[in-house]
């Protein structure tokens, strides 16, 4: 899914908080009250292209694969698939066996309201739905050009009035009731990651047929939870209940050494989900979320930037006040990068690498880190974040501005060489950003930094959809934005600079470098190998030196959790985590008194 997050959803990145009402603590069963920081679009997998929507979708729907909850680095494991697929020698044919006896939840869409068994054909249907030209699924980019015959199928029905799902697609077949076969048009090493993303999750055609346009609000899945009363009412509070027909899925008994040591295997072998209901509250503003956490109505919360100093005074350890309440701090790096993109359609930026370098040098990343990320983010040297192959350890980009006076001198020199001594002759540069307070402040900061070398910047705030539209229609000069990983592969970041991916694709800046394009084309079809890593690093270096964007930072998430919340771990791919979380009710009753 395309998870561009606002440049400053910083800590809101892990925007799920658990609320847990003290009053309700004594009702039957365990309740996990969570909250998210953004509106949810709906419950249809093919439209879940932001983190918040896809997380909600993943409570109800499931895919063939998922990320192992307790393994790092991130490892794919079978979910609805019986096992990992058999891959043909040429790497183009993937054959999956699907688990038997998996039932769709009971719903009026099925005869007598009883959910039927999931079969391979359901995946064929669901993925065709993603490709359906009439539905305009937002995740189509993921499979565009990847599966044999699917593009042709899509193209054919673009012009015809109705779409025929019965027509067979060469690369997408159910061989029998439980066998599913994909044939790829070209090698796509990230294909398996795609199958762990909510876009490709299984939906039931009966439900699609019954609810039609309203399917968005009538989720019918195979997953651990079902929405209460079966209808998503687009409210600020979403209630899920345990799906009674959920299969025997067990809490994992293996974990990375670190998690094992932390005792995260206590629930090993227990049937999932571990709680009876999940309540998701949508609370968009930081402060109400924070207050809810402090009252124990929220089980975990990311620390708002402005509360950071009081909560984590030395930037490492929790303040004694919070420790005494049994609250834990969990710090983990996010797979993301913030950046200021140039519009490379403009001659001004396209042909003038020195101008870009000058601007990048003038941008003091250290101060911005201090002002906006409590000095806890990692200044980005290039596009690929630490933690995935392709990131170059200890590499320092020669054009990474750090606020030193020498760099300022160099920046001014480069600006003069670019043809704009002291900024003379340069038009006013507009900087577009989303309209939240912090993104505006980041814009003002950018303006200030550029003023140091005589470049005049105008900051314009836009509502999020408006900004996206401006980028797609190339109606921008420079804009501030961020990218969070869809899957743990540098390809997901480097594609942002791949020429043919230009808007409306993911490359919003329209950067087009023949050398980088050539390398990307080669690397994109390679399986994970040292050679591919070398290529990734090479591209990463080009991306640093050519300064297609001014890089910002790789953020870290700081999450606080209450003592009674069990099994919580930070994850960049947190779709489906609610099933693993557990609540210690007794402890909760006791600890809430201390708050």
């Amino acid at each position, binding site marked *: 899914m395309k998870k561009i997050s606002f440049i400053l959803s910083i800590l809101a990145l892990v925007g799920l908080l658990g609320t847990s009402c003290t009053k309700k603590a004594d009702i039957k069963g365990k309740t996990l009250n969570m909250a998210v920081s953004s509106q949810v679009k709906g419950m249809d997998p093919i439209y879940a292209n932001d983190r918040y929507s896809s997380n909600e979708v993943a409570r109800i729907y499931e895919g063939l694969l998922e990320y192992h909850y307790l393994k790092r680095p991130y490892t794919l494991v079978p979910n609805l698939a019986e096992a990992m697929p058999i891959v043909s020698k040429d790497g183009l044919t993937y054959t999956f066996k699907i688990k038997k006896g998996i039932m769709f939840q009971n719903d009026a869409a099925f005869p007598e309201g009883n959910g039927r068994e999931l079969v391979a054909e359901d995946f064929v249907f669901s993925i065709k739905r993603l490709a359906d030209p009439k539905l305009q699924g937002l995740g189509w980019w993921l499979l565009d050009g990847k599966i044999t015959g699917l593009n042709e199928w899509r193209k054919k029905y673009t012009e015809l009035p109705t779409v025929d799902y019965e027509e067979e697609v060469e690369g997408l077949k159910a061989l029998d009731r439980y066998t599913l076969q994909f044939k790829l048009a070209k090698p796509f090493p990230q294909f398996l990651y795609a199958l762990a993303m909510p876009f490709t999750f299984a939906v039931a055609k009966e439900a699609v047929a019954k609810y039609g346009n309203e399917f968005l609000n009538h989720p019918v899945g195979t997953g651990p939870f079902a929405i209460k009363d079966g209808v998503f009412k687009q409210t600020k509070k979403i209630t899920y209940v345990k799906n009674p027909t959920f299969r025997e899925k067990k809490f994992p008994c293996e974990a990375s050494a670190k998690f094992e040591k932390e005792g995260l295997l206590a629930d090993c072998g227990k049937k999932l989900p571990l709680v009876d209901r999940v309540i998701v509250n949508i609370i968009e503003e930081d*402060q109400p979320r924070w207050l809810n956490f402090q009252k124990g109505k929220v089980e975990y919360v990311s620390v708002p930037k402005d509360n950071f100093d009081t909560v984590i005074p030395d930037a490492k350890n929790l303040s004694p006040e919070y420790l005494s309440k049994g609250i834990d701090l969990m710090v983990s790096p996010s797979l993301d990068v913030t950046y200021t993109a140039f519009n490379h359609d403009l001659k001004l930026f396209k042909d003038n690498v020195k101008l870009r370098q000058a601007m990048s040098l003038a941008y003091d990343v250290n101060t911005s880190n201090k*002002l906006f990320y409590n000095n806890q983010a990692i200044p980005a040297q290039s596009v690929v974040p630490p933690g995935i192959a392709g990131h170059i350890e200890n590499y320092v980009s020669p054009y990474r501005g750090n606020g030193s006076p020498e760099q300022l001198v160099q920046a001014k020199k480069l600006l003069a060489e670019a043809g704009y001594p002291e900024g003379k002759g340069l038009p006013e540069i507009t900087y577009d950003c989303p309209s939240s307070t912090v993104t505006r402040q980041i814009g003002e900061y950018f*303006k200030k930094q550029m003023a140091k070398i005589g470049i005049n910047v105008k900051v314009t705030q836009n509502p999020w959809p408006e900004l996206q539209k401006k980028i797609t229609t190339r109606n921008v000069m420079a804009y501030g934005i961020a990218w969070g990983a869809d899957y743990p592969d540098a390809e997901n970041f480097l594609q942002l600079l791949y020429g043919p991916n230009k808007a409306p694709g993911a490359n919003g800046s329209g950067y087009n470098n023949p050398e980088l394009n050539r390398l990307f084309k080669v690397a994109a079809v390679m399986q994970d190998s040292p050679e591919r890593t070398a290529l990734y690093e090479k591209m990463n270096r080009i991306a640093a030196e050519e300064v297609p964007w001014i890089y910002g930072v790789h953020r870290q998430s700081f999450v606080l959790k209450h003592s009674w919340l069990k099994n919580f771990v930070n994850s960049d791919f947190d779709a489906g985590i609610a099933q693993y979380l557990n609540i210690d009710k007794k402890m909760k009753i006791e600890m809430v008194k201390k708050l």
Partner: protein
Amino acid sequence: MATNEQESKSLWHHAWDSLMSDRTTVIAMSIVLIYSVVALLSSTGLIVSDWSKEVGPSYAPPSSEFLFGLDIFGRSVFAKTVKATEIAMSVGLVTGILTVLIGVTLGSIAGYYGGKVDEVLVWFYTTVSSIPGIMLLISIAFIVGKGLLAVYLSLGLTSWTGLFRLIRGEFIRHKDREYVQAATAIGGGDFRKIFKHILPNVFHIVIINFSLQFQFAIKSEVILSYLGLGVQGVPSWGTMINDAKLELARGNWWQLAAATAAMMVVVLAFNILGDSLRDALDPKLKGK
């Protein structure tokens, strides 16, 4: 005719006397005057032209050195507040003038001519006023692009309806009065009757409305800027309050305090002034 002139003169004179005799009004007027002078000095660059300069550490609290403290970038909150005064006053003035121009022109035409002209204009004004204000403001801001111009236009083009209604009503009332008939009798044209004869008799409404419009525009500008639709790149009380929304969690109250205090004082002053003007100018309230 002569008596008429004398009367109107004494009305203004009388109003002035009554305004000056009330201490609260005098204070309110002085405040407005001070704000205007500050705005004028700031717009000519004589004061706070360096508001964007970093003068100390980020979020320094108020002290003898930093009156009102500093903001996230170490800029003086005092300087920002003063600079924002310029924006607020200019928005008040420009939208006030726009409102008067549109409201008075259309209102007098509608009221004076009546008939089809009136119907069309009334239809137009009811249409404009039936659209929720904030929606209209947002859409205008989107059309003309964000910035000061958008604020001027969006406020000016949306808030004339109240004045239009009043002026139209007054014109309907006045147009058949004897002094207008007399003007017709001696061959006065429409233009002359509207501007020379009727308008001076309803002008007190314009003045009162202008002063109330002024403070409404200031408040609206703050709201627009708070929502990110207002001025861009220069301080506004609205953006300062928006900043403060997050800063309060750190215990930084000074930006909020400075912006709200500055706004409160001027809005209150305009309200008091508007009230006093009405008391002084409205013939119906005279002697009460």
